[in-house]
């Protein structure tokens, strides 16, 4: 286990380094922030001073090395726009995105697993066919459109749920959370459902496929031959086996949910990281963009690690060893 973790750490460092280079080059290629940040009326001397202050006068490789040196000390640069450390800006907004993503994932599991289980056990029933058709809708309807529809129906027409913002928050562990207040929770419902729609469909399809496959296995027939009740066979023998692929995919999807909650956050004006990055791209706020992408990379690496460990807990045949 220790060897495994050590290897993963070294791998992670290499990935982060490679990504930092790619991100830096990519962001550099998007455009020149000077054009946007400095007013067109400024004269040449003002321009020069501003460029120097932002460190944009150095050659690219030097800019990269400076960035790398600072990053090692935990400094990912200051936002051009907010004039605050980029890292701090992002971390402030992270709880909002995290609770949204976690909410969406939990919703996906709570809704997706039972529906998928049912569809897998009774593949020919009308309800199962309805569930499967619904999951196709979940895959193919664009997130922003569903978000707008949700707002129209539940916020505008029925007036049941608030449509924008996080509502009341409580500070726990130095971060502000919405899900701990009734008002905040009400604000979270629609964005979380919106974000989880794709994942619900994914979980339904994975679960159904897993159940269909597992039911044909000899060990299920043997379990029946042992005289176990159908409930026990489904909930223990089948369920534990299908959890393996579901955990893998949902776990990996979690990183994606955080990274791409951009659309949902924009639609519901949810003040999370996704909204921040969109705003930053609009004004070419390089440090924020770079810092955001680096944090996402770190997050993906961490999530993959957690998935691997969970996987080994679920599947006794997988043992985490130093061997690749």
């Amino acid at each position, binding site marked *: 286990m220790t060897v495994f973790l050590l290897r993963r750490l070294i791998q992670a460092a290499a990935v982060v380094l490679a990504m930092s280079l790619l991100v830096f080059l990519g962001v550099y290629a998007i455009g020149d922030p000077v054009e946007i940040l400095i007013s067109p009326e400024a004269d040449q001397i003002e321009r020069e001073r501003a460029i120097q202050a932002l460190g944009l006068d150095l050659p690219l490789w030097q800019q990269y090395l400076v960035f790398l040196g600072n990053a090692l000390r935990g400094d990912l640069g200051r936002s051009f726009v907010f004039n605050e450390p980029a890292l701090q800006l992002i971390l402030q907004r992270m709880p909002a995105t995290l609770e949204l993503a976690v909410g969406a994932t939990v919703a996906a599991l709570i809704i997706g697993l039972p529906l998928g289980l049912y569809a897998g056990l009774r593949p020919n029933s009308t309800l199962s066919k309805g569930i499967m058709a619904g999951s196709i809708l979940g895959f193919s309807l664009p997130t922003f459109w569903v978000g707008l529809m949700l707002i129209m129906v539940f916020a505008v027409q029925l007036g049941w749920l608030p449509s924008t913002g996080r509502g009341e928050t409580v500070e726990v562990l130095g971060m502000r959370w919405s899900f701990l207040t009734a008002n905040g929770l009400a604000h979270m419902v629609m964005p979380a459902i919106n974000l989880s729609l794709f994942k619900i469909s994914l979980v339904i399809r994975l679960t159904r496929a897993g159940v269909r496959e597992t039911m044909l296995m000899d060990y299920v*027939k*043997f379990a029946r*031959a*042992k*005289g*176990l009740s159908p409930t026990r066979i489904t909930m223990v023998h089948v369920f534990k*086996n299908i959890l393996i692929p579901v955990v893998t995919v949902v776990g990996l999807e979690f990183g994606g949910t955080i990274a791409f909650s951009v659309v949902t956050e924009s639609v519901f004006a949810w003040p999370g990281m996704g909204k921040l990055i969109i705003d930053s791209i609009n004004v070419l706020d390089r440090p924020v963009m770079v810092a955001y992408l680096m944090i996402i990379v770190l997050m993906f690496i961490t999530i993959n690690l957690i998935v691997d460990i969970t996987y080994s807990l679920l599947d006794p045949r997988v043992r985490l060893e130093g061997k690749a």
Partner: protein
Amino acid sequence: MTPPTLQVRNLRTHFFTRAGVVKAVDDVSFTVDRGKVLGLVGESGSGKSVTGFSILGLVDPPGRIAGGQILFKGQDLAGLSEEAMRQLRGNRIAMIFQDPMMTLNPVLRIDTQMIETVLAHEKVSREEARQRARDALGQVGIPSPEERLRAYPHQFSGGMRQRVAIAIALLHKPDLIVADEPTTALDVTIQGQILAEAQKLCADFGTALIWITHDLSVVAGLADDIAVMYAGKVVEQGPVTQVLDQPLHPYTVGLIGSVPSRNKRGEPLRQIPGMTPSLLNLPAGCAFRARCPRAEARCAEPPPMAEYRPGRHARCIHPYEEAVAA
């Protein structure tokens, strides 16, 4: 007179597929009594496994029992409800499967899989169930059963896993065990050990055993009676030594002739020409006709099951009356 442990009468198990009705088991009858071993022999697809699953009520759709009786100690299983059947399965009637690598759930520990079997049929404490599981493992010759209980299936070899499966089958000391080619996937040495184990079982507990196999040499040493299946029908049955020494049906003769060890060195190995017919469109009359060296025009009529000698039945109109040197 107590009824025999198992009496199968005119069992028909058919699969109703889109391509037509597959008569996987078509008019099969046999009897197994306390402490006796019946060898159910045949090629792949002859319906022997489906017969086994029919007895346990584990035929999956589109298949179902289309007719006949399965009398277990006088009670007809074919008419039982699913819940009544579940209470018998693993309790009074147990089954052992062919591939020990596949029969144990890979993500559950051995103790979980054994204890749940005990608890499915008896109200005992977990601790007691655990003790029963440990004793059963010891009984089938698994060393240090206490430790092995905590292991996962992948930590066992194939032979050991089959022993675990047998131990699970033994937990409730069933009256009948259906063993579906339980030694096919194993080494010869392990096979020998498992066979000895099975024999001891029947003798000790009076368990009736149906041993499904395509290996005649296994049946020769183990079974009391033998039923040879071909294309869903029993074509010959009787006491094992008599059937193997003096087979009546040409198919049995061919099957015995196909055993390589009976061949003289240097001679080409004998074989039955052709292959088993598709169960979807069986030829009228005797299904073995197309491969039979003695086939004639009369074989186009379905041959009845007839008793040619006391206790010796065959489904053939011109059986080998005298001993053939197979």
